[in-house]
C-alpha cells in the first residue's frame, strides 16, 4: 500500500522513510494482480447471487477508487460521485438500448462525458476555494436526480431503463453471471493499475503534494488549480466507468442508486477503507456493499451501523481500516510505524 505521507513522515523514523519506497509499491501491484487472479476463480460454485455480489463489489470499488483520488489524494470533497456514476450508467444504458451502440464505445463515452462534466463543474468551484466544490457538487447531484426522474422520454423516469444488454468480448457472449464477472474483474484490474501508475507518476506526486501542503506545492511551481481540477475530473471519470459497468451488471437502472445519500455513502466508503491508500477503496466497498448483502437481516439498520463505525474510525484512526492494518503490521513487526 502506498502510505499517505502523514505529518510524522517528516520525523526521522527509519521505518517510515522506507515505507513508501519501491518495494511497498510493487507490493500494491502484486496484491492487485493476486487479487484479480483469486477473483477470477472465486465465484465458482457461489451461485448467481454470490457472483453478482462480488461483481457489484468490484464495480463499486471503481467508483470509490475515483473518489479516493479526489478525496484521498487531492483532498477535495466531491458530493456527486453517485451522480457521476448515474450519468455513466444512464449514458451507457441509453446508448446501448436506444441507439444500439456497442458497449465499448458507450463505456468510453461515459468516461469522457463524466470527465468533461467534472471539468465544467470543477472549474468555477475551484477558482474560489476548495470547499466550494462540495456545494457545487451537492447542487449537481440534486440536478442529476431531477433530470433522471423527470425526463421520462430519455431516462424512463422512476421506472428506469430495463433490458440492458451485457457486452460480448471478441465474439464471446458475456450473458452469464460468471462470464460477466470475469469481464468485470479484468476491467477493474485495468482501471486499478491505471490509477496505480498515475499515483506513482509525477502527476500523482503532485496530487499528494497538493493535499499535504497546497501553499508549498504552489511555491514549488505546481499549478495547483490545474492539478486539483484534473484529479477531480479523473475521479469523476472513474465514477462514469463504474456506472458503465453497473448498468449491464444489474441490467436495470432507476434513479435511486444515484441519489445524494449514495454520494455521501461512497465518501464514507473511501474513509472506511482508508483515504489515500490505493487498496483502501476495495476494503471500503467490501464493508459498504458486500457486508450488508451478507447481513441482510440488519436491513437499513446496517446503514446506521456503518455510518457510526466510520465516525468512530474517524476519531480513532482517520486513515481507516488500511491505516489500522498498517498500525497492526507495525506492532507485529515490533517497529514504531504508528502513523500518528
Amino acid at each position, binding site marked *: 500500500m502506498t502510505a499517505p505521507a502523514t505529518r510524522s513522515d517528516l520525523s526521522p523514523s527509519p521505518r517510515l522513510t522506507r515505507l513508501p519506497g519501491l518495494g511497498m509499491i510493487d507490493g500494491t501491484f502484486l496484491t492487485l494482480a493476486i487479487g484479480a487472479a483469486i477473483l477470477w476463480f472465486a465465484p465458482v460454485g457461489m451461485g448467481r447471487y454470490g457472483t453478482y455480489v462480488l461483481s457489484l463489489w468490484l464495480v463499486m470499488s471503481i467508483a470509490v477508487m475515483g473518489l479516493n483520488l479526489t*478525496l484521498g489524494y487531492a*483532498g477535495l*470533497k466531491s*458530493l456527486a460521485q453517485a451522480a457521476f456514476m448515474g450519468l455513466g450508467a444512464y449514458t451507457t444504458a441509453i446508448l446501448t438500448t436506444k441507439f444500439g451502440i456497442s458497449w465499448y464505445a458507450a463505456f468510453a463515452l461515459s468516461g469522457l462525458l463524466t470527465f468533461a462534466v467534472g471539468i465544467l463543474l470543477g472549474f*468555477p*468551484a475551484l*477558482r*474560489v*476555494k476548495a*470547499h*466550494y466544490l*462540495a*456545494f*457545487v457538487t*451537492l*447542487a*449537481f447531484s*440534486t*440536478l442529476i436526480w*431531477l433530470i433522471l426522474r*423527470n425526463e421520462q422520454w430519455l431516462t424512463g423516469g422512476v421506472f428506469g431503463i430495463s433490458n440492458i444488454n451485457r457486452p460480448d468480448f471478441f465474439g464471446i457472449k458475456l450473458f452469464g453471471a460468471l462470464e460477466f464477472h470475469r469481464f468485470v474483474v479484468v476491467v477493474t484490474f485495468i482501471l486499478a493499475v491505471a490509477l496505480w501508475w498515475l499515483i506513482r507518476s509525477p502527476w500523482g506526486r503532485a496530487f499528494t503534494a497538493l493535499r499535504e501542503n497546497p*501553499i508549498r506545492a504552489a511555491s514549488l511551481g505546481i499549478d495547483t488549480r490545474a492539478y486539483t481540477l484534473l484529479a477531480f475530473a479523473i475521479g469523476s471519470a472513474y465514477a462514469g466507468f463504474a456506472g458503465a459497468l453497473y448498468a449491464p451488471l444489474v441490467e436495470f437502472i432507476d434513479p435511486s442508486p444515484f441519489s*445524494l*445519500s449514495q454520494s*455521501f*455513502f461512497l*465518501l*464514507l466508503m473511501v*474513509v472506511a477503507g482508508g483515504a489515500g491508500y490505493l487498496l483502501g477503496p476495495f476494503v471500503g466497498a467490501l464493508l459498504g456493499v458486500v457486508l450488508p448483502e451478507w447481513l441482510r437481516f440488519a436491513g*437499513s*439498520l446496517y*446503514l*446506521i451501523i456503518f*455510518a*457510526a463505525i*466510520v*465516525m468512530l474510525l*474517524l*476519531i480513532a484512526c*482517520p486513515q481507516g481500516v488500511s491505516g489500522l492494518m498498517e498500525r497492526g503490521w507495525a506492532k507485529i513487526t515490533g517497529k514504531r510505524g504508528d502513523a500518528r
Partner: protein
Amino acid sequence: MAEFIAYLIAGIATGAIYALAAIGFTLVWQTSQTINFAQGEFVMLPAVLVLLAIKLLGAPIWLGALIGIAAFILIFGVGFKLAVVDPMIRHGVLPLAIATMALSIIMKEGAKDGFSAEAQNFPSFVPTQTIEVFGAAISLQHIAIIACAFAVIGLLQWFVGGTKLGRQMQATAQNPMVARILGIPVERMVLLTFVINAALAIVASVLISPIYLAKFSNGEVIGLFAFIAAIVGGFNQVRGALVGGLVVGIVDSMAAAYISTQYRLAVPLVLLVVIILLKPEGLMGRKEERRV
C-alpha cells in the same frame, strides 16, 4: 398581481426557514470550521423527536414538545460539539466534514427506522386558514412563520451585537486567537454557537413541519437550500445568511410558480453557480473573510 403577492409571501416564509438553518450553519462554521453537512437533518429531527416523545410517553403536546426540544439541544447542541466536533477537529476540517455526513445518514435512517417512513402530521399553533390581502389569499401559517422567524432572527441579531456575551461570541467567530488573548472563554463561546444552532434548528423545525409534515427525508432539500443560502448571502454573520435565505426562498417560490414545478429545485442551484462565478464572496460578503 394577487397571485404574485401570494407566491411572494410563500417564498418569504420558506426563505425565512432557510435563513434560520443558514444562520446556524454559518455561526458553527465561523467559530469552529465545522461544515455541518447534517444541517438539513438538524431541521428535520426536532419535529420527529417531539412526535416521538408524544407517541412513546403518551405525553400531552406541551410536555412532548418540551422533552423533544430538551433532548435535541442536549444531543445535537452540546453532544454534537463534545462527542463529534471536539475529538475530530484535531484531525482536520476534512474528516470532520465527512463525520457530519455520517451523522446525517445516522439521523435520517434513525428517523426512518425509529419513527416512521411515512410523513406524519405535526400540530400547528396557528389555524390553517387563509386571509385576503389585496385580493390575494395568504395563509396564516405563512404569516406566522415570517413573524416568528424574524422575531427570532431579530433577537439573535440583538444578542450578537448588543450584549456582552454576544459580542464575545462574535469576537470568537472573527478571530479565535485574538479573542483568547483578550480573555474571552473561547471554548465556551464555541459551545454556545452550537447550542444556538440547535435552537435555531428547533425553531425552523417547529415552524415548517405543520406545512411539510414531519418526514425523515425533509432534511435533504432544507439542507441543500441552507447551504445555498449561506453561500449566496456570503459567510458574513447573521445578515448574509438572512438575505441569502430570503433570496433563495423567493427564487424557489417564483420558479415553482412561473417556470416549472418539476425543476423548481434547479433554479436556486443555477443561482448558486452564478453567484460562485460572479460574486464568490456572496451578495453581502466582503472580499476574503477568513484567515487561511
